[in-house]
């Protein structure tokens, strides 16, 4: 009898402590989808097979593979692996581990102004109008490639982002300067 009472009260006390702890120290973590979405590079390129980064984030949260994001490269896969608690694996489809960052560039004298790329651009980074030359706002371009295919005249190139002094990363060995003398 005493044993029962003792056990019962113990259980009660611990229960209260646990309950209090749960309330007091609750971890305010954003839902997993948010976290995954924050890791994805937001190019909205659809290379993962989903229409945008958010849907892919949802898919990952529901158990899809984490290696379907070529723009993110290995770094993204690694972070996703950490977050999801699974093993990092190489990118699907033998993509390069370190993707070359590109922006779309429209060869403007070849552009016929069909607006197809404007409709394709997921981030509204192309400006122009019907029968007008279009142009890409490179700051907004995510390099997703989606505008290249629709172009009827193939006047969109994906150009590697040019290096500036601000983006230079101290690759001392790779400085190529033509020696004048």
């Amino acid at each position, binding site marked *: 009898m005493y044993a029962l009472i003792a056990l019962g009260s113990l259980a009660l006390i611990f229960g209260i402590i646990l309950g209090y702890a749960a309330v007091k120290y609750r971890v305010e973590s954003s839902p997993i989808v948010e976290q995954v979405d924050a890791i994805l590079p937001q190019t909205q390129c659809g290379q993962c097979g989903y229409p945008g980064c958010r849907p892919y984030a949802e898919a990952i949260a529901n158990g899809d593979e984490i290696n379907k994001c070529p723009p993110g490269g290995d770094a993204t896969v690694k972070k996703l692996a950490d977050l999801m608690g699974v093993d990092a694996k190489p990118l699907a489809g033998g993509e390069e581990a370190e993707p070359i960052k590109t922006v779309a560039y429209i060869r403007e004298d070849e552009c016929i102004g069909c607006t197809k790329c404007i409709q394709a651009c997921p981030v509204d980074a192309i400006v122009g109008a019907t029968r007008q030359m279009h142009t890409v706002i490179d700051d907004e371009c995510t390099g997703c490639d989606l505008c290249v295919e629709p172009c009827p005249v193939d006047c969109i190139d994906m150009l590697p982002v040019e290096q500036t002094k601000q983006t230079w990363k101290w690759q*001392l*060995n790779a400085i190529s300067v033509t020696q004048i003398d």
Partner: protein
Amino acid sequence: MKLTMASSPHNHSQKSVSTLMITVMCACIPGILTQAYFFGFGVLIQLIIALVTATLVEAVILKLRNKPILSTLNDGSAWLTAVLLAISIPPLAPWWITVIGIVFAIGMVKQLYGGLGFNIFNPAMGAYVLLLISFPVQMTSWIPVEQLLGAPIALTDQFSLIFTHTNSAGLTLDNVRTSIDGTTMATPLDAVKTAVSQSFTVSEAMKGAQFSDYAGIGWQWVNVAYLLGGIYLIKTKVINWHIPVSLIATLAICSAIGYIVSPGTQAGSMFHLFSGATMLGAFFIATDPVSACTTNKGRLIFGAAIGLLIYLIRHFGGYPDAVAFAVLLMNMAVPLIEHYTQPRTYGHGAKK
């Protein structure tokens, strides 16, 4: 004209890893000589065995790991490990004790963790503990100082004892050790411990032949020699003062308190400081940069904790000396200590 590109700074102090290691080895010399003076040339023989083995083992493993052999051997870290282990084991221990110890120290404790800079334990002490646990008899068979031996053991006898277990007369090490007065000459630490466990007081125990004023005959001078070497290291800025000072201070304070509380069962500070491997441990073992703390605050904690552990193990533990155990235990705590002892960076929470 083709110009060479380099990253700043373009200047470099002349200190290199190998000069550091060589300086430490040089600082060991007074200690080694004192040891040889009191305990015979066995220590030099062990030293040679250890150096040769270490060189071979390091080279083989580097070869297996496809690393540059010569340049890595040149850094001298393997030799330093060899020196430290050789002076830690009894001078007349069988040769295979040294060889096993070195193979373990270099092969397992150092190279298996990734080589110099990556090992979390002090290689020499790791090997020492392995040997102590595996071969307790051989590892505790310290011969008494030469004055206490009836006749000094001849160099050739020392050779044959080390390599064949028997001297020219066919006597084993145990026979040699007990030949005088028919009693086994234990190390001072051992003697005190045994005496206390047999309900003698420490002062009674210290009346033994192997004791002098403060600590064991010979032992105290060996410790003094290492202390001098250590001071030289601090002077040349090879090691920082934090670890030795906090270690010695802690050990001294603890033993002093113990002595005051229970003078019968506890030896005094001087005994603790100048017995066993205290000074060697404080200046040469605990300061091994790779496995010690790197923050100044951390070093103080690290040293103090080792001092405390030495005292505790010596007094309450099963082993007479405790430097190796204490250092290894604290090696494990290094990352934790470092995490909590980051110095305040300039401009962060600046004090007014």
